[in-house]
Structure formats: structure tokens, C-alpha cells
């Protein structure tokens, strides 16, 4: 039963990936829609970023002095000025670890 469920979930996920690429004719989308679609990264990824920082494993809001907030601020600053993905991730993780393990 679990196997069947996984396969159905996989097929649905695949359809989400495939539908717009394979089945929808781009010409159907007007210029206005295309202009709005240029915002997709900015409109989607914060929905992963914000809960990943502000909500803990139990689904409740973190305290304002949570080390994840400090880690995220460091990552934003390092990322903005270095333009380097590795530096962004590492600086965020390390500043987070420094607070939880050393302070």
C-alpha cells in the first residue's frame, strides 16, 4: 500500500514538472503574463526561506533571539557582497553553530 502511494505521489509530482513544459504552448501566454513570470524566483523561494528560519520543527514561531535569525542575517550580508553561493551557505551555518555551541 505504501508503495502504491509513493508511486501515485511520484506520478503527480512528475506531472507538475512536465505539464507546463510539454503541454502548454508558450504563445498562449500573453506578454503581461510573461512579464509577471519573470518574478517567479522572487515569488517562490521566500516561501521556503521564511518558514525555514522563523518556524521550528514543531510548527511554532521561534523566539526573536533564535540563532537562526543571526545566521540568516550573516548569510544575507555575506551573500550580497561576495556573490558566492558557498560563502553564503557556510557563513550562515557557521555563525549559527558558533551561537549554539560556543555561547
Amino acid at each position, binding site marked *: 500500500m505504501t508503495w502504491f502511494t509513493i508511486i501515485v505521489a511520484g506520478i503527480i*509530482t512528475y506531472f507538475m514538472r512536465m505539464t507546463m513544459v510539454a503541454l502548454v504552448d508558450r504563445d498562449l501566454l500573453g506578454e503581461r503574463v510573461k512579464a509577471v513570470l519573470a518574478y517567479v524566483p522572487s515569488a517562490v523561494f521566500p516561501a521556503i526561506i521564511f518558514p525555514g528560519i522563523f518556524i521550528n520543527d514543531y510548527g511554532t514561531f521561534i523566539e526573536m533571539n533564535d540563532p537562526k535569525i543571526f545566521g540568516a542575517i550573516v548569510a544575507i550580508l555575506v551573500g550580497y557582497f561576495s556573490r558566492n553561493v558557498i560563502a553564503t551557505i557556510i557563513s550562515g551555518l557557521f555563525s549559527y553553530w558558533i551561537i549554539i555551541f560556543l555561547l
Partner: protein
Amino acid sequence: MLSKKQIFSKGILAVAPHMFSVIPFGIVCGAIGIELGFSPVLVYAMSIIIFGGASQIVFLQLLSGGASALIAVTSVGVINSRHLLYGAVLSEYFEKLSFIKKLLISYLVVDQGFAESNKFFQKNRNETHLHYHLLGSGGTLWVCWQISTLAGIILGSFVPEELGLKFAVPLTFIAIVVQDIKKLDHVIVMITCGLSSLLFFDAPFKSYIIISPIIALFVAALVLRLKK
């Protein structure tokens, strides 16, 4: 004009830095599956069949918590529905591909690969073999996801929870959007999405992950209208 091989390599190089977050997250994902009591084969098979980090964890957590199969499948569908938006963006660049190639390449569309390849596509619209970039980025993510979830399944409880490795996930996406914070219109869209995701976090089936992008895109449409 770049060769297929050159574009493919650029795709690999573009996502390579994200391995610092994909690999830890894959390990966590595999380890959680085992911890929840599922068989190693089943946990690993999900990495091939579903191939979507967050949705795999939610799926197993729901089933182990006693939720029905219908609820688990619906949640996976809702969480992964954001790929419809990625597909809509990518369709412009894959227009000339044959139907079969479109079907095959779709399997490799995942968050970081989409994000990095899309950045490349915007700057190199006129290249002929654009899709090789996504083959490189998505293929690299696929291979690393397989290896890291397997590692998590094997290492299991050896991965200390206190490390908070899941925190690498928001960091990798910060790295993707951080350069856009110099553009006011993008900042407005990002904040709208972020605040909406917190506001709707408790909505059923994790639907905050698609509700907030839709709200943010409506705001983007408004912003575009005001800019004119």
C-alpha cells in the same frame, strides 16, 4: 555560440556550490525516513520516484503519524505544485525541443537547478542548446540527491540532530535570491511571499508553499502596472 558540452559543464558548475546544502539535507532526509521506521528500500525509492526533498519528508511524516494515503499524496501534490510555475518560465526556452525531449527533461526540473539555469537562460537567450544547461544542473542535483539520501539511510542516527543541518535549506535559497534585494520591485514581491508563507503556514496540506507565491505574483502584476 557555445557547444553542447560547454553548456552542460556550465550547468554542472552553476549548481555545484549548492551541494553544500543539498548533501546535508539529503542525509537528513534519508535519516528521518529510517528513524520513522520505514524500510531502507522504500525510503530510497522515493528519491527516484518523487525526487523532491521537502515533499519526501512530509510524506513519510504524515504516513507514520497515521494520516491517510490520500492526505499524504495530496500534500506531496500541493508542495510540488510550485514546479508548474518553474515549467511556465522554462517553456519559453524549451519551445523548440521535441515532445519526447520535453517529457524527459521535465523529470530534472528542481528548485536549485531551475533557479541557476533560469539565470543562465535570461543572459543567453540566443544559444541553440540551452536545455543542456538544465541537463547539467538537474542531472548533478539528481546524482547528489541519490548519493546523499543513501548516505543518510546508511548513517541514520549517526547524524547529530543538534547540528540543525536543515537550516542549510533556507541558506541555499538566500544565496539564490540575495542579489535581487537591490531591486525594489523584487524586494516587495519577496517580502509579500515571505510574510504570506508565515501567515498561511498552518493552512491544510502545506498549501502555504503555493498560496504565498500566487499572492506574491499578483502583487508583482500590480507592481508592473504601477511601473508603467
